[in-house]
């Protein structure tokens, strides 16, 4: 996107839609206050159901990405979903995932959301308490391993939503709850614990009543999973995400704050000169994080269902990444034997730093979330 194009589009989130049902929600009022920064004092547009905007026919995901709208909605139906057997659960049983949002502020060219959703607009669900009630119900039966940044990047949205802080307040008192929060942002996680003061003397976003003390119980059970890619991949394919160096600094800060940290080399992309670019990249990550305790590592190659890929190719016809002549097995497009070689290459490069038993490779049809 060039700058002359930028001046033509409305700024991202400058249009806010809100469901009638969400109007009465205090969380919606907080979000509207936060969104006023982007909307330039324009009234939100009241709609009956979020699908009236999100689900319209004939939308263009790629064009909307230049200026996504914000939709505030109330979630109904299921709040948590069991992870499939083939999902990357990192050895945890009772694996579930959830999403307080639909869509992501970033735009990775390989992102499956382009194939999954009809719209690039960002939906935020305001009824987090309903999610929490559902988690409580499950916790009464067994421990829960929950990925909360599916289909979005929650940390990237934290300044606007305060959702992660609210979740951590909830999670702090729930012993059996282990959480994974995946991100490509460089959000300074100390701000989750010590929110910055605002001009009016309050804190920015949701209030954390007990401050650091009330959250500290959640920290060792909240895994911050950083998805890492070579800088050339970040700048060419992961539009809007934090540069590699910023992610590495944020990761180090998260570990220092006591969060277990996970490295996700997923998706590895088949790009020209793969061995050199990924080899140098792994070495760079190793030298930057040599003294940082790493919980574990996930490695996966890009893979996507053929129906999503068809949609994504239509949406981004100029993306070299998506035009790759993939192999198709059982409606999943993948790199075939080359993909296995790519994983083996990265695994080998990590040996000597990360013990083999800490390395996980998924068989998931497509990488999920940030």
């Amino acid at each position: 996107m060039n700058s002359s194009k930028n001046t033509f589009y409305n700024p991202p989130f400058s249009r806010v839609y809100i469901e009638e049902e969400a109007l009465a929600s205090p969380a919606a009022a907080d979000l509207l206050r936060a969104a006023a920064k982007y909307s330039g004092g324009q009234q939100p547009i009241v709609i009956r159901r979020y699908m009236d905007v999100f689900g319209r026919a004939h939308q263009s995901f790629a064009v909307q990405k230049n200026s996504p709208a914000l939709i505030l909605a109330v979630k109904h139906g299921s709040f948590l979903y069991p992870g499939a057997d083939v999902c990357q659960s990192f050895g945890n049983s009772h694996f579930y995932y959830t999403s307080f949002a639909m869509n992501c502020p970033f735009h990775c060219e390989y992102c499956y959301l382009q194939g999954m959703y009809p719209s690039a607009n960002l939906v935020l669900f305001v009824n987090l308490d309903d999610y929490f009630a559902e988690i409580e119900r499950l916790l009464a039966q067994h421990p829960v391993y929950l990925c909360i940044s599916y289909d979005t990047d929650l940390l990237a949205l934290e300044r606007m939503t305060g959702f992660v802080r609210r979740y951590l307040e909830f999670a702090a008192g729930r012993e059996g709850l282990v959480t994974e929060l995946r991100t490509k942002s460089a959000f300074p996680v100390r701000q989750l614990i010590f929110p910055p003061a605002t001009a009016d003397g309050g804190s920015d976003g949701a209030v954390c009543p007990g401050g650091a003390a009330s959250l500290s119980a959640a920290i060792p059970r909240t895994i911050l999973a950083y998805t890492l890619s070579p800088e050339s991949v970040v700048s060419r394919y992961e539009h809007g995400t934090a540069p590699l160096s910023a992610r590495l600094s944020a990761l180090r800060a998260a570990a220092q704050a006591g969060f277990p940290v996970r490295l996700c080399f997923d998706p590895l992309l088949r790009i020209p000169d793969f061995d050199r670019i990924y080899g140098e990249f792994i070495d760079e990550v190793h030298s930057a994080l040599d003294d940082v305790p790493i919980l574990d590592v996930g490695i996966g190659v890009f893979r996507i269902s053929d129906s999503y890929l068809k949609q994504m190719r239509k949406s981004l016809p100029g993306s070299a990444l998506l035009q790759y002549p993939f192999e198709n097995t059982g409606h999943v497009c993948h790199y075939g034997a080359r993909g296995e070689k790519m994983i083996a290459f990265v695994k080998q490069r990590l040996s000597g730093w990360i013990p083999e038993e800490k390395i996980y490779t998924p068989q998931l049809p497509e990488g999920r979330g940030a």
Partner: protein
Amino acid sequence: MLYIAAALYEEAIPFFDALSMKKNTSFAHFDLFSGEDSMLLLTKTGAIRAAAAVSSMLTAFPPQKTDLFLSVGTVACPDSEIPVGTPFILQQITDAASGRTFCPELLFRAPFPRAALTTVHRVLTAEMLKSFPLHAPGSDIMSNTGVLAGCPPVPMLCDMETSGVCEAALPFFSCEQLFFCRVVSDHGIDAQAMSPERLRALVTECTGRCADGLIPWLKEISGLRETSPALPPGAVAFCEAAVSALRLSAANAEQLRRLLLYLHLSGVAYLEEMSTLLEKPLHSPCRTKKEGQAYLEQLKEHFL
């Protein structure tokens, strides 16, 4: 191509001039005017008539991905504080009869403020207009929460065509190709208060005020639309020759075409090397499909 739909001749006059349009006599059923890269349809009044007209124009002249559609016209405004001649871009279009609402895409910085509109199915008198809300749904609730105190409310407008135009245009375009602009011409028609001549002149004045802002804006937006990248002609010719020399099946031919496109988009110089690798079959074509497929696998192995 810029497609324009307006209900009345008087509403269209400023666009005829600005886009040098002439009557297009090849289109039999409705009044159509064409310019160099634009066409304007007169739908006449009423949502059903408007839907039929728009649908038939778009069927006869199917739009491309890079085209835009503008629906323009005059409307009544229940809020008498909003002056006649004020132009708006529509954020919400509701059909009063069905209750169906459509939210047009608002991706681009528009030259005019936003309004919501309801399409009704009869002429609105000043008396009837009094029963309409002054502002878009939710404006009051929002100001009561105090969250957005100070945000100007979004005006409500009424007309007789927009929901029909919208329903008919939707299947032909992606949402971001559609633009709906309305200019306030009255606060409810009072037939006795204005002569038909004066009314017509007023309508032209109103749309004239927005045409100057709209046309350059839409031209710039249309310049932003991107077309799909394609293989350069040399690569297309090479691909055709290779498909025939290797006796590739349709599926394998598609694999080869995709390989070339991938390499082209990746900025890899491949044609010379590939020509060398296929020198033999390009000279004396493969005798079996199997032989050709082996060459294709070799190319993939080499380049991927």
